[in-house]
């Protein structure tokens, strides 16, 4: 049985979630929009899930719109908000370290005539709050991730948001990696929109939520029906939404204990890595990070080689963000942090999770040591 250190890519579905989803598939066959009792039963289950989702991020249930996941949530928030504010300006901004989904949403707007700015990252992977002051007037939307998917670095979202709002800029927070791993409170962050995805914390793939603070403007993208208060047309993914709700409730309930447990495991893992590979470079080490994420470069061990070696020995990890073509292009996130190419192409992301045990950490350390040794023997130009 291999060791799974790729929880930032996706997590195993929690048994309680699977059970609730199975039950929904068996028993909740009606359409939640139907007026009859069967429909009402399904509607009630969806609304229960909405309340559970809201609790995870300190929102009101009425502020939660169910979507298919992070990418859709980012698109709906960024495109929908920019569109709703088009009279105020046609400029949006996002941090250099944002997920592809945010770049994609900005690209949609670009094609429609908007322009965009990119906030820099410092060497620790943090977006400097004062960089907001450099945004051009007419900027209406700023997208910021709560925690970076590759480095786990937790961003100064509240400070960035305060500066944005002083300039009348609405803030979209992509909390896909943060929600369920660290406490999230939309009120404390002050943001206008928040996106999260169920499969990052024990829920199913294909279910996510967009939280829209009261009075934040939004044009819906999927139209033609009144689902989700008219903000997201389409018959609800009922089993997915129910799974999201259960996963959110379980994550919220165990958050403090689980994040403390993961932090201990990660510390142990990092200490072991440093011992085995003294010249290791841990990216974002000086910044606040998610308790589960280690992004490290092993100089001289190219990441595609290292991944092959790790996988062959039973450890699942990832090279920065999953890349379709598997090349050795340095990750844009590490690039934005100023990590030199020769180091960036040797980066591996390990992300621990609910199923990770002390024994996993010990076994993983042995595998990493052996794999780095093997990968360093492959000396080809790159």
């Amino acid at each position, binding site marked *: 049985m291999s060791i799974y250190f790729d929880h930032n890519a996706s997590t195993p579905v929690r048994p309680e979630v699977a059970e609730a989803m199975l039950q929904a598939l068996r028993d909740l066959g009606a359409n939640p929009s139907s007026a009859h009792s069967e429909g009402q039963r399904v509607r009630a289950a969806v609304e229960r899930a909405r309340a559970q989702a809201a609790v995870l991020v300190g929102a009101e249930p009425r502020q939660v719109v169910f979507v298919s996941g992070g990418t859709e949530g980012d698109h709906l928030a960024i495109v929908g908000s920019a569109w709703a504010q088009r009279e105020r300006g046609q400029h949006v901004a996002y941090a250099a370290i944002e997920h592809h989904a945010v770049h994609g949403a900005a690209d949609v707007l670009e094609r429609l005539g908007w322009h965009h700015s990119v906030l820099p990252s410092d060497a620790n992977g943090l977006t400097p709050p004062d960089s907001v002051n450099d945004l051009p007037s007419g900027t209406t939307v700023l997208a910021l991730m709560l925690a970076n998917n590759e480095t786990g670095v937790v961003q100064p979202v509240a400070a960035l948001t305060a500066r944005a709002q002083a300039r009348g800029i609405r803030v979209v927070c992509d909390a896909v990696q943060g929600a369920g791993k660290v406490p999230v409170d939309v009120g404390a962050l002050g943001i206008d929109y928040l996106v999260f995805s169920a499969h990052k914390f024990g829920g199913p793939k294909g279910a996510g939520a967009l939280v829209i603070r009261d009075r934040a403007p939004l044009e819906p993208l999927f139209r033609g029906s009144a689902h989700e208060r008219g903000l997201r047309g389409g018959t609800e993914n009922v089993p997915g939404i129910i799974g999201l709700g259960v996963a959110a409730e379980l994550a919220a309930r165990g958050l403090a204990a689980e994040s403390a447990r993961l932090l201990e495991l990660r510390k142990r893992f990092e200490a072991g890595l440093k011992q085995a590979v003294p010249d290791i470079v841990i990216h974002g080490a000086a910044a606040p990070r998610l308790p589960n994420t280690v992004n490290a470069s092993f100089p001289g061990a*190219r990441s*595609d*080689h290292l*991944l*092959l*070696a790790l*996988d*062959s*020995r039973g450890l699942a990890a990832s090279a920065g963000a999953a890349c*379709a*073509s*598997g*090349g*050795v292009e340095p990750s844009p996130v590490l690039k934005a942090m100023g990590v030199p190419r020769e180091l960036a192409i040797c980066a591996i992301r390990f992300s621990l999770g609910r199923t990770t045990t002390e024994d996993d950490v010990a076994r993983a350390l042995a595998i990493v040591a052996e*794999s780095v040794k*093997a*990968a360093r*023997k*492959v*000396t*080809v*130009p*790159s």
Partner: protein
Amino acid sequence: MSRLRVLAAMSGGVDSAVAAALLAEQGHEVTGVTLRLACYGKTPLSPRACCTLDAIDDARRVAQTMSFPYHIVDAEQVFRERVMMPWVDGYASGRTLYPCASCNQHLKFGDLVTRMELAAADRLATGHYARVTREPDGSWALRRAADAGKDQTYALALIPYAVLGRVLFPLGELEKTAVRAHAQRLGLSCWDKPESQDLCFVPDGDYAGYITGQLGETRGTAPGAFVDERGARVGTHRGVIHYTVGQRKGLGVALGERQYVLGIDAAANTVTLGPRAALARAGLVTERVNWLLPTAPAAGTRVLARIRYNHAGAAATLEPHADGGVELRFDEPQLAVTPGQLAVFYDGDRCLGGAPIREAVGTPRGLRVSAPAALAR
């Protein structure tokens, strides 16, 4: 055979897919790997069977069907440095290299062998049609495939002797039809994929267009003189990169008798033309030979020599040179001895080794017509 850990090179084509799948079916622990070589994303909708992201998808699907792990390894830089640019330099200097041989030498049986330890692999498997046998004296022998029409030993002649003991060629004993039948039986979606014929990095076979267009190469593109065997100008050529020795088509000259390219002199920017009979050469001299033998053969060794991929072979005698190359004397003169192509030597079905051809020797009139030695290396 006991259970082996095998690193299987997968190009996305049916041959390497079946090679890997058969090993997995036999119970070996297979890890599939595709070398990402070049041109991905730059050739949209290429109908060609390899060298696109589709190839990666196809290879991955095979791994999924057969339930073994699959990885992609980047080799673009090495491919460019060791295979593609030498091939381009060759064209620009009037030599027609055979890049598949250098790809096998440097990437598949060079760098990939060094990657075996990543997967803790005992063996490296590919979909080549060739066989490896252990000889009574303990040496390894590379032998022609059972399917003579598919035999790929010519393309393997430059691989290091030392890797023969570590490679598996599961298709060596199979006919191509049987390979497709296996693919169909195993439910591999690539079973009816077309054969790849041309160079994987030149999608449409237009080498000159690729070299000038994709690579922005300007060497060898200046028009110059077509000359006859006595050096008299008989026309204008379009630049030496458009020609290879033995070429008949696309010359655009009418001189009564059908004309062939006899030689290319990039330094003088001339292309020599002449009748078919004038292509005949009594022998050739090679660059340093890669011997697939524990020790190089003695002077006077009789071999069958193939001087291009589809050449049936000609009886010849080897004379080793001090620089590691050989001089080869054909029993009968051979047509179109092309500098840059490989000369590969056989004893029966055993491939003894091979080397790039430096120059042809012994024209009917005793002249040497080939790329000047200064450019040949």
